[in-house]
């Protein structure tokens, strides 16, 4: 299996055969036992014979001492008054909300013995459709954050009595008379919160200012101008047959990605009955998660985006455009959009009003309004108005503000001129209701900490007509009070304090009287739907004047363009102290923990930069002193990208890798009274150092040129549903077959057509199975513990005539494909050699195709790991599970070495209660999130995906208790539950009616590395792209 037959590559290191990667790839557990690390790094301990004797003597005496310990006395404390419905040991699910993307995302919280341990999406809501993003899953940890304020604070001193806090606040507000009082919050989607704010504003003649870290004001302003509606419309990706996205990362970070992912994939899975799927074209400058899923992807400089939009508009309206993609692709896109006959959708990630007006005009021409876009059921997002916020900053700077109430906004961190605002805030008194001390509230006169969303009552309206209820799922962890109640207390209302929160009554009253539904039922369901008049007004904007403005404003950037973007896990940076968000590898770059400057291969070469070099970035009059460089295939030339959400400056009680993480790029955001722009022209970079090593998982667990991925085009699929899977291997085996005809036979299928690589499953698995967080340096050593990883592969887009007949997969397997469909890397590079200019140019790196492939334990029916375990710690069950018994494992790692899928993880350390891994496992509050049904593993044992056997066992038991047969869906894995695109299906393949049994009959299904005869229980479904290979697109 030579590397040259590998069509896919994980990263430039692999493609260009970096010696470290190739060395590591054959050596999964390369490191020796880290004795020095375990025993401290003092000089005397570097091992020699005498030290061995010392260690030996120490261990013998330690064992002897340990054996002398008495068994600890354990206690059991029952309730005094057991609440009804609470059964210790049984989980309860409550419908409530979490605060990711915007307020009020509908979720179900799994609660064990009064503490929430897992969040899942609420299937009753169109916003979540039963799934939850990685960031949403991770947000549960903010409840158990040891950095939360345990008590209110007055002038830095803790104060337990809220009435003292209230009188201090009213004193401040009184002394502010004559000056303005401001209340700063994020976009408010809750009518209850809004009422509290209104009361506060009325009582103190205050001004309410909305601040959001990420602005969508351009879309709102454009819709105001085009339709007279100041809204972010409801995009319906499931109804579109052709989707064109100009830089909108709608599957990753844009507006409401979880819901968009769920909708998008509904129309992306072809079946024999309906062999159709939507066509997705992405035109962008950075490689976004959305871009990796596109059927066609074009890279353009972000600054020219507006001109491409105008061109597309002109082409659609019959004219011709001055900006064109290679191969007249934009013209083809225009004709495909037209041919979609109203079932088209064009979106744009720009926050520029003119760009969005053109997008509106295009969608109007295409008849998308009323079909794929609904202005009525708009998204309640981003009420942030730059002009009013700038005037607030100016007013505070002048010293005109007597008091500023910071509700949940943190402008000092994410406002482009945060330093100025911070200085200005020193001239006034800040009253804070944030849960932790952040940049904006460091010097607050009063901290009146808010409840966590999981401790609060509320009703939100994240989408017009779509109400979501929130209820507490845990007794308050700290002495906090809902900000909604605080505001009313400060408005002169008497708010009773105590367990039964005052806001409970306001919420139930609102639901029953204003919304007119039964409050108990509504709180149970978590969602209230009201019909909305979708009345789509006609387009009244002026495309031509917008086009003229775009043309006038277009300037070619001298130097680089800097595109500021959000990462899927980290988002706007609110989750800075959440280790799950940072340990999850970024879906595109596979980097954990760091932020960096992404740059194209070509620009790296011409600027003499290598991966890991440090550069100084100057843009928009601001400077970032040093950030490492990451070479990103698929990135447009002349563009560099930096993620927002890093460089937080907040106190952290834990000593871990989340301190001083990355650099804050928000100061570079181009904001003015007229809007916010995340593109900065005329950026320069300067090399200031080198040698940074990313904690990047892209080259971990490599599968070394074997046949693991299969993809085909839609046309091929239409001809043959089993395309790429024609050749079935009949591996002979030395082992006798297990008999699975009786009972259950658990299996999983992963549809690579539906999988977008969003990472939701990774975090869900992490939480469900008590997987430890290991930190950056351990990830660098390839010791990440994720049971489920998503492999991201690149491949080149190549012209049809450049390739000869080709093989994919191991050379001993006869798998020839039609000319032009597949190419080896060797051929590709040879083909590119013909065009020497392009080769030196690294032109082939500009456009890469990407495949995401989630890989977890394949639960092989002939598992190679089982036969090599010397202590029978990993064995096979009669239900087809590959079982891992931690207390038997002695840590030889034979199983991991024998696993062709590289899915076994070794505990190099005891990650819990270990100050060297100071994450939530190391403090009592953080450990509250642990799943009590799953063992917390100790040092020296192997672990791996168990198919969430705890859920299987629970489902079986429930069926037995209820005296019924197990039905499909009773037993489910955490990854399958979390997946927004339903790409993961889990079930009992012995049940003929189950979804998984049908997957086994699906012609697209194949088993990974079928030829090695492991007979896995996990199926993969061939990825189908809606492409025509014979048409030249580059």
């Amino acid at each position, binding site marked *: 299996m030579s590397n040259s037959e590998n069509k896919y590559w994980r990263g430039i290191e692999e493609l260009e055969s970096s010696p470290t990667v190739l060395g590591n790839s054959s050596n999964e557990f390369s490191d020796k036992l880290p004795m020095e690390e375990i025993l401290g790094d003092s000089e005397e301990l570097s091992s020699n014979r005498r030290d061995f004797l010392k260690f030996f003597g120490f261990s013998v005496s330690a064992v002897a001492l340990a054996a002398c310990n008495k068994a600890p006395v354990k206690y059991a404390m029952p309730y005094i008054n057991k609440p009804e419905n609470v059964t210790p040991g049984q989980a309860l699910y409550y419908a409530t909300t979490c605060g990711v993307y915007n307020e009020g995302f509908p979720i179900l919280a799994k609660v064990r013995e009064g503490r929430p341990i897992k969040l899942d999406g609420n299937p009753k809501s169109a916003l979540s459709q039963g799934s939850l993003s990685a960031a949403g899953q991770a947000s549960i940890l903010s409840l158990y954050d040891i950095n939360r304020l345990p008590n209110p604070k007055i002038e830095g001193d803790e104060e337990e009595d809220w009435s003292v806090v209230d009188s201090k606040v009213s004193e401040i507000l009184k002394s502010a008379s004559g000056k303005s009082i401001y209340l700063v919050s994020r976009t408010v989607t809750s009518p209850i919160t809004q009422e509290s704010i209104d009361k506060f504003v009325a009582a103190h003649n205050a001004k309410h200012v909305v601040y959001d870290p990420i602005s969508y004001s351009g879309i709102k302003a454009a819709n105001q101008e085009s339709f007279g509606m100041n809204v972010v419309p409801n995009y319906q990706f499931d109804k579109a047959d052709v989707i064109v996205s100009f830089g909108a990362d709608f599957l990753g970070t844009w507006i409401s990605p979880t819901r968009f992912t769920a909708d998008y994939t509904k129309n992306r899975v072809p079946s024999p009955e309906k062999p159709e799927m939507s066509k997705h074209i992405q035109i962008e400058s950075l490689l976004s998660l959305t871009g990796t899923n596109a059927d066609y992807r074009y890279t353009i400089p972000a600054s020219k985006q507006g001109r491409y939009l105008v061109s597309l508009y002109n082409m659609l309206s019959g004219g011709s455009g001055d900006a064109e993609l290679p191969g007249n692709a934009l013209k083809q896109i225009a004709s495909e959009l037209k041919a979609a006959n109203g079932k088209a959708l064009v979106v744009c990630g720009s926050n520029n009003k003119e760009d969005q007006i053109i997008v509106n005009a295009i969608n109007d021409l295409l008849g998308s309004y009323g079909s794929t876009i609904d202005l009525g059921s708009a998204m309640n997002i981003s009420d942030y108005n730059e002009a009013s916020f700038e005037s607030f900053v100016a007013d505070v700077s002048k010293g005109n503000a007597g008091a500023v109430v910071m509700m949940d906004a943190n402008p000092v961190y994410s406002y482009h001129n945060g330093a100025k605002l911070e200085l200005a805030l020193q001239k006034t008194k800040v009253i804070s209701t944030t849960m932790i001390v952040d940049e904006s509230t460091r010097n607050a006169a009063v901290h009146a900490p808010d409840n966590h969303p999981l401790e609060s009552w509320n009703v939100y309206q994240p989408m017009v007509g779509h109400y979501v209820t929130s209820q507490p799922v845990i007794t308050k962890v700290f002495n906090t009070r809902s900000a909604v109640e605080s505001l009313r207390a400060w408005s002169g209302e008497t708010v009773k304090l105590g367990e039964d929160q005052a806001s409970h009554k306001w919420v139930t009253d609102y639901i029953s009287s204003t919304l007119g539904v039964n409050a108990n039922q509504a709180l149970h369901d978590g969602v209230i739907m009201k019909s909305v008049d979708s009345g789509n007004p006609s387009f009244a904007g002026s495309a031509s004047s917008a086009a003229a403005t775009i043309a006038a404003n277009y300037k070619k950037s001298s130097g680089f363009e800097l595109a500021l973007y959000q990462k899927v896990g980290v988002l706007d940076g609110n989750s800075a102290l959440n280790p799950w968000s940072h340990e999850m590898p970024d879906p595109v770059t596979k980097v954990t923990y760091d932020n960096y400057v992404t740059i194209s291969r070509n620009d790296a070469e011409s600027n003499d930069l290598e991966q890991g070099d440090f550069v100084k970035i100057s843009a928009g009059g601001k400077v970032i002193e040093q950030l490492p460089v990451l070479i990103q295939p698929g990135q447009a030339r002349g563009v560099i990208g930096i993620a927002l959400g890093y460089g937080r400056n907040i106190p952290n009680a834990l000593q871990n890798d989340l301190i001083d993480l990355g650099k804050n790029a928000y100061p570079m955001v181009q904001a003015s009274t007229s809007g916010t722009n995340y593109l900065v022209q005329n950026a320069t970079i300067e090399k200031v150092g080198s040698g940074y090593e990313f904690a990047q998982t892209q080259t971990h667990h490599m599968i070394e040129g074997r046949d693991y991925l299969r993809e085909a085009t839609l046309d091929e699929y239409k001809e043959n549903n089993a395309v790429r899977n024609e050749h079935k291997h009949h591996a002979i085996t030395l082992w006798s077959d297990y008999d699975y005809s009786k009972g259950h036979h658990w299996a999983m299928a992963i549809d690579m057509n539906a999988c977008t690589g969003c990472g939701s499953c990774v975090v869900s698995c992490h939480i469900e199975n008590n997987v430890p967080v290991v930190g950056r340096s351990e990830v660098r050593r390839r010791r990440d513990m994720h049971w489920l990883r998503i492999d991201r592969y690149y491949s080149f887009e190549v012209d049809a005539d450049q390739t000869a007949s080709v093989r994919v997969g191991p050379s001993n397997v006869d798998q020839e494909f039609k000319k032009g469909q597949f190419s080896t890397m060797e051929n590709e590079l040879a083909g590119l050699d013909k065009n020497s200019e392009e080769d030196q140019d690294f032109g082939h790196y500009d456009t890469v195709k990407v495949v995401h492939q989630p890989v977890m334990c394949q639960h092989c029916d002939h598992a190679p790991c089982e036969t090599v375990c010397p202590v029978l710690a990993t064995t096979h069950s009669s239900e087809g599970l590959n079982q891992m018994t931690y207390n038997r494992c002695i840590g030889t790692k034979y199983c991991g070495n024998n696993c062709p899928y590289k899915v076994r993880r070794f505990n190099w350390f005891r990650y819990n209660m270990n100050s060297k891994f100071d994450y939530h496992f190391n403090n009592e509050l953080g450990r509250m999130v642990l799943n009590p049904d799953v063992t917390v593993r100790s040092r020296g044992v192997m672990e791996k995906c168990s198919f969430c056997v705890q859920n299987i066992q629970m489902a079986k038991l429930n069926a037995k208790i209820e*005296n019924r047969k197990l039905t499909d869906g009773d037993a489910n894995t955490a990854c399958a539950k979390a997946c927004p695109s339903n790409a993961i299906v889990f079930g009992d393949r012995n049940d003929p009616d189950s979804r998984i049994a049908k997957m086994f009959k699906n012609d697209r299904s194949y088993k990974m590395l079928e030829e090695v005869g492991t007979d896995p229980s996990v199926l993969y479904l061939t990825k189908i792209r809606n492409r025509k290979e014979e048409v030249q697109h580059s």
Partner: protein
Amino acid sequence: MSGSFYSNSTFVAIVILALVLLLIAALMVWVLRHITSIMREKSNVPVEPSFFAKNIKPKMDQWNPTIVTLIVIGALVVSLGIYGFDYGVTEVGVQQGYAPDQPINFPHDKHAGSMGIDCQYCHTTAGKSKHASIPSANTCMNCHKGAQLRDNYGGNVSPELMKLYESVGFDPETSTYDPEAETHPIKWVRIHNLPDLAYFNHSQHVTVGKVECQTCHGPIEEMEKVAQFSTLQMGWCVNCHRQRGIDVKNNKYYEDVHKEMKANNEHYVTVAQNGGLECSKCHY
């Protein structure tokens, strides 16, 4: 039944101490004899060689000292090793007979025995959850609000019961709850401690398996002070899983298994035959 679980190790310590003392005594005897023989030599009194010196010593002198030492050390290592291994495997962590003092001397023999209260009246969740759960104090108060046990205490409330009343803030004189009283949960000592690596679910055994409480917990209705009846070792679990049958007839979950059994003319399927010995049934 011994009062404390730790008596075992105390016994071992005493044995070791006795061995050491014996060794010292033997040494002293040896020293004494040596000194006596030297004294005799000095006083030139001819001494009759002892039985040992005459018959055994010459034979011993023929032995190879290295081999003898090795054999002795080897025998010691093997015997102590076997004992240590056996101890480690069978004894460490086993708390059979563990009967700690409880904060309230709750007599199971009165409640479950003479009064015949059903186990699940108090341990309500044994049939529906992983934990059998110790009853919350309000369950006790169902009866003890009225039953104040004054007969044996000269008209006063039983002092043990008084602890319960203090815990829930109940005033037995007026038979009312004091809303202002500070309540606190009762801190019972756990008797049955499974290690975290083993998953055990009561409802699986009580509701599905229809196992009597006494099968594992012993004659609770006769215990004044509850002690751990079984070893709670894996071997004990496995033995039962090998012997007990599953009631496939009366549970629809086992419909397919039952059909197959009837077809094969089988009448009995044990837990083990149904996969009940597989690792991940209990360890995950």
